[in-house]
């Protein structure tokens, strides 16, 4: 069974100086991400969202914590597990639902599907479905910032399979060599599809040594602890801006649901991991643990109000998306 190297009892004390408003804002982002994904999870079996969909439930703290430190003009790229970075960069939920439902108002006009989201005005440049591309593209956006003498940074969200592709090594080497202002966000959820990294494709793969060996700063962070994610990525982003050097962060986290689709693996009788293991990791829930911290601070009422509001809003948006128009023949040929 895969265990976390971090403690379950999360320490959020670094967030103590934050105002109530700020703390609730962080919780808002976490809960919002979770709830949106849950709506998709619950609706997906109805076969209205006909596009392969990779849900990020369990991994929310990473994109929320990283994106809180980004500026609107920074550039984000993501791999196929794209919803969370898209939501955290304030991409429209209506457009997300529409995209999944194959509607014209989708973030890609319904042409892209779950894996091809974008929200340029929010800095979410795009997600792609071919492994490794997000890494290369983010580096390219970083190069552009540098050539344009802009102070912005670029960010790539990806998992271990992307890291395995040759493109990733070439890109990291390039970024180190050319001082590219890029943050590499490696979401280590221990699996690529059904292969556990520790005994499979990454048995001898030590990202820390590889990244450091290329001369790039490497950090390892508890990706289920919003406080750690927030402060470490803040540190990394400050470092990138100050030194014009790339930084690579390995976030430890866990994907609760199946690789692609809305179900738990154990419910579908897939045996590459046990129900026990999933249950163990659910105790590390990045949303619930932070909520506990806020409740201890006496924010119960604010939280339940906030949750109710989000539930209502998101459900309404989904209903609206269901009613929105499908693209038609004339849309097929646009933007070729």
């Amino acid at each position: 069974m895969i265990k976390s190297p971090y403690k379950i009892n999360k320490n959020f004390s670094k967030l103590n100086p934050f105002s109530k408003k700020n703390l609730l804002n962080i919780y808002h982002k976490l809960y919002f991400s979770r709830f949106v994904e849950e709506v998709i999870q619950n609706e997906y079996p109805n076969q209205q969202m006909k596009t392969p969909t990779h849900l990020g439930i369990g991994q929310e703290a990473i994109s929320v914590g990283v994106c809180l430190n980004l500026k609107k003009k920074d550039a984000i790229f993501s791999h196929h597990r794209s919803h969370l970075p898209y939501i955290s960069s304030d991409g429209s939920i209506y457009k997300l639902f529409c995209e999944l439902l194959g509607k014209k108002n989708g973030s890609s006009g319904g042409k892209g599907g779950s894996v091809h989201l974008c929200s340029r005005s929010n800095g979410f440049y795009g997600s792609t479905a071919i492994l490794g591309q997000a890494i290369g593209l983010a580096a390219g956006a970083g190069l552009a910032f540098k050539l344009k003498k802009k102070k912005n940074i670029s960010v790539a969200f990806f998992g271990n399979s992307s890291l395995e592709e040759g493109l990733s090594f070439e890109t990291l080497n390039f970024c180190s060599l050319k001082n590219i202002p890029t943050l590499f966000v490696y979401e280590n959820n221990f699996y690529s599809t059904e292969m556990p990294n520790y005994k499979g494709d990454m048995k001898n793969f030590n990202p820390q040594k590889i990244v450091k060996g290329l001369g790039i700063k490497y950090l390892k962070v508890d990706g289920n602890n919003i406080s750690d994610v927030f402060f470490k990525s803040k540190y990394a982003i400050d470092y990138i801006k100050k030194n014009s050097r790339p930084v690579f962060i390995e976030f430890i986290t866990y994907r609760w649901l199946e690789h692609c689709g809305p179900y738990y693996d154990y419910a579908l009788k897939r045996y590459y991991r046990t129900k026990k293991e999933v249950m163990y990791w659910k105790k590390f829930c990045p949303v619930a643990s932070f909520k506990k911290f806020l409740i201890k601070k006496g924010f119960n009422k604010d939280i339940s109000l906030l949750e109710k509001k989000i539930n209502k809003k998101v459900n309404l948006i989904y209903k609206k998306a269901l009613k929105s128009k499908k693209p038609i023949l004339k849309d097929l040929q646009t933007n070729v």
Partner: protein
Amino acid sequence: MSKKIISYSEMIGQAITSNMKKNNKIFISGLEIDYSSKVFGSLNKPFEEFPSRFVQTPAMENGLCTILAGSAINGMRPIFVNNRCDFLLLAFDPIVNIIDKWNYMFDGNAGNCPIVITAVIGRGWGQGATHSQSFHNFFSRLSGINVFLPTFPSDVSRVYNYALKTKKASIILHHRGLFKIKEKQNFSKKFCLSNIIKKGKDLAIITFSYGSIQSLQVSNKIEKKFGRKITILNLVSLNPLDKTKILRVAKNHKNILLLDIDHDEGGINDQIFNIIKTNFVNKIIKKIGYKKIPAPAAESLEKLYYPSNQVIYDIACKLLQINHKKNKIKTDYNFVGPY
């Protein structure tokens, strides 16, 4: 000969397994190949029998294809399995610059590179622009690689038996709509580049892969409704192309319909069109293929992008000068996602 009914996906497994039994140089490599779904069930049998001859790898299509080419040059017979044709793009360098040309570049002195590359064409259910492409039109422009697109279990059996024995490298592309196709296992074992799967004098359809399935559905309906008989030439191989058979079919038919499962422009349809037209100027030829745009994800657009049975039916009827007026025919593509 066995009368057992076998599915396309089982046939892949059976063909690979029986060849593995005979030749211990054959091994299987790729990513995600020993996972529970085993490439739509096609690798269940070989994995049961020869788990140690599976080389499961990280995500490394570019490197892996080069590595496997190296193993082929050194006497092995790798089968490089890909869950999507799109992932092969990462391996275009070894495919084009090594595998295709190895024998020729060294004038035969550096040996052969008999690798078999398989990939799934992932049409439908919102697979979108980068998980549904097929590069048969590109691959068949190469000189040193066979390009096979088997339609039926019988094609699968013959293609694998051939590809795993020949000295040349082969690319075998499996359309995702075919994995559940069933057939009685009493077919001939003799390899052929193409076969006539239906005979008729009124019209000829030249097509392959999922196009052959659609053509069968359409011709059956036309035959039932109007008594008109259609020939379907199922091209199992696009490289080499069975020019002799194509010309023989063309000679016997005034009306010919070409159906590709990729962008129509500049592909195999145009090539066949030219072959026929240079020999028989007066033939009436219609071409059907996808519009020259990437595949959209939305279902409403997918329906417009992929030629439906209705589109094929209407064009066939026009060629046959049947005025069918609003006769409807359903497209029977029943894959349920997500992957």
